[in-house]
């Protein structure tokens, strides 16, 4: 087993374990958010193993660094504590649901394994900012600009919503 494969399994195990920890810790909101951070960082590790270095670093900067900080900011502003949530219901149903999910995964792996992605040789400089920038500003320019317009619309909407409350 090469180092790449070993690292992949390490990060994959970390990502899965932290994702499970996030769901289990749903009542302790900050612990859940921190599990999400570990999950994001493990995913970034997987991206590095896959040679997508820029995506990995953006994953950490944007998702682990900025978005979850915003989550925690909101949690701390609302000062949510463990007793802010009602006790859980439908325990048996949840347990059955997770068993069904595991069964589905096992069936998928058993029957459809050949459709999993195969390794291919990468060209020089793959995953760097030059390649990504060229792709974004030539082939996918329209999609890129449309996304920025969408984000602008979201910002304007947020400002309008906030201002309406200030004005009244």
């Amino acid at each position, binding site marked *: 087993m090469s180092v790449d494969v070993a690292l992949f399994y390490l990060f994959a195990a970390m990502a899965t374990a932290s994702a499970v920890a996030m769901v289990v810790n749903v009542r302790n909101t*900050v*612990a859940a958010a*921190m599990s999400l*951070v570990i999950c994001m*960082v493990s995913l970034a590790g997987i991206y590095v193993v896959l040679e997508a*270095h*820029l995506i990995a*670093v*953006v994953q*950490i*900067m944007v998702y*682990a*660094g*900025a978005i979850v*900080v*915003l989550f*925690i*900011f909101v949690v*701390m*502003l609302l*000062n949510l504590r463990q007793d802010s949530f009602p006790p859980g219901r439908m325990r048996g149903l949840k347990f059955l649901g997770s068993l069904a999910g595991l069964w589905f995964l096992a069936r998928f792996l058993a029957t459809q394994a050949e459709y999993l992605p195969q390794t291919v040789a990468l060209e020089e400089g793959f995953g*760097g*900012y030059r390649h990504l920038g060229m792709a974004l500003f030539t082939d996918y320019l329209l999609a890129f600009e449309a996304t920025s317009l969408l984000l602008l619309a979201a910002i304007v909407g947020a400002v309008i919503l906030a201002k309406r409350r200030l004005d009244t």
Partner: protein
Amino acid sequence: MPWDVVAKSLFILVVAVAALAPVVTWVERKQSAVMQDRIGANRADLFGIRLLGLLHPAADVLKLIFKEDVVPIGANRVMHLVAPLIAAVAAIISFAVIPYGATYQFGDSTVNLVAADIDWGLLYIFAVGSLAAYGTILAGWASNSNWSLLGGIRASAQMISYEVTMGLSVVGVFMVFGTLKLTDMAFAQDATFRLLGFLEVFGVVDHLPRWLAWIQLPMWGVFLQPLGFIMFLTAIMAENKRPPFDIPEGESEIVAGYHTEYSGMRFGLFFMAEFIEVIVIAGLMTAIFLGGWSIPYLPQERIIGALEPLFGSGMANLLCMVAHVSTFLLKVVFMIWFQMVLRWTQPRFRYDQMMDLCWKILLPLSIANAFVTGTIILLVRSYGS
């Protein structure tokens, strides 16, 4: 086993963390004393030897190690323990991508003085810096204290805001040097440029005094991107939460903010992380804006070319390496001094002033800076020689 990486990491740990960080705490006290016309820290003595107060860092560390480690009632024990570790580790590992020397040839082997020479070096520092915010935020949350919580909330808002401007304010530098790799940036700065070079494109050079055309400046980021230098320094100092941006720990309002409930060496780790970050900031500013290891007007080939006939190739490279590393350390010490001067001359901002500075001044300015830089680069490329 890549022994060179181990050796370089050890060099960073010994020089930056073990040797420089305690000295910086001493500099902080002594410099504030000088600036405020006091005598300053000089009480710690060992058998009557005081060494200008240089024994104070040792006394501090001993005190912090032997002090009782208090965890407040109702605190989240795990997160209370992990928070200072995140802060300290993030500060230390940022140093990995900062080049403290050029590339040198010793016979067949090439020595490259940076622990991790990665293509996206600057982004790595931003990523690690954004994770460092969790140290502060978790400390505020896990302490089960209102003062700490307020400090944590302020810290999360402050760090997330200044991360944006920190990234945008160096976009101009990316454009000028055409790379995100810190080693390439340092190499690009080991050259000179004519001050009027880019003005020739606009045809105004003939109307200016002739002697101006003779001026050659080192190709440092601070000369190419003066606005970027000021904005990046502001943003990264705000990211480090030191005065005048120490709103998360504002003593006059919220006791000591996020580390109110910390004592002993856990407080010491926060304290250390802050000072290591001062050194990291100094190293980063040096690498991006002050030419890194380069000696102004003396490019590496010229140094080695002049020394090679005298001492031979290996010795010439070694001497050049010593000169470069010393230059780098000298610039780092200058940037540390500069940060200390700022810290002891500026009063703390109010929260709204700090947010206004970030979103209403630095953000539009950095976007304008990127736009103007891009326009000039485009004009020079299309009409220049």
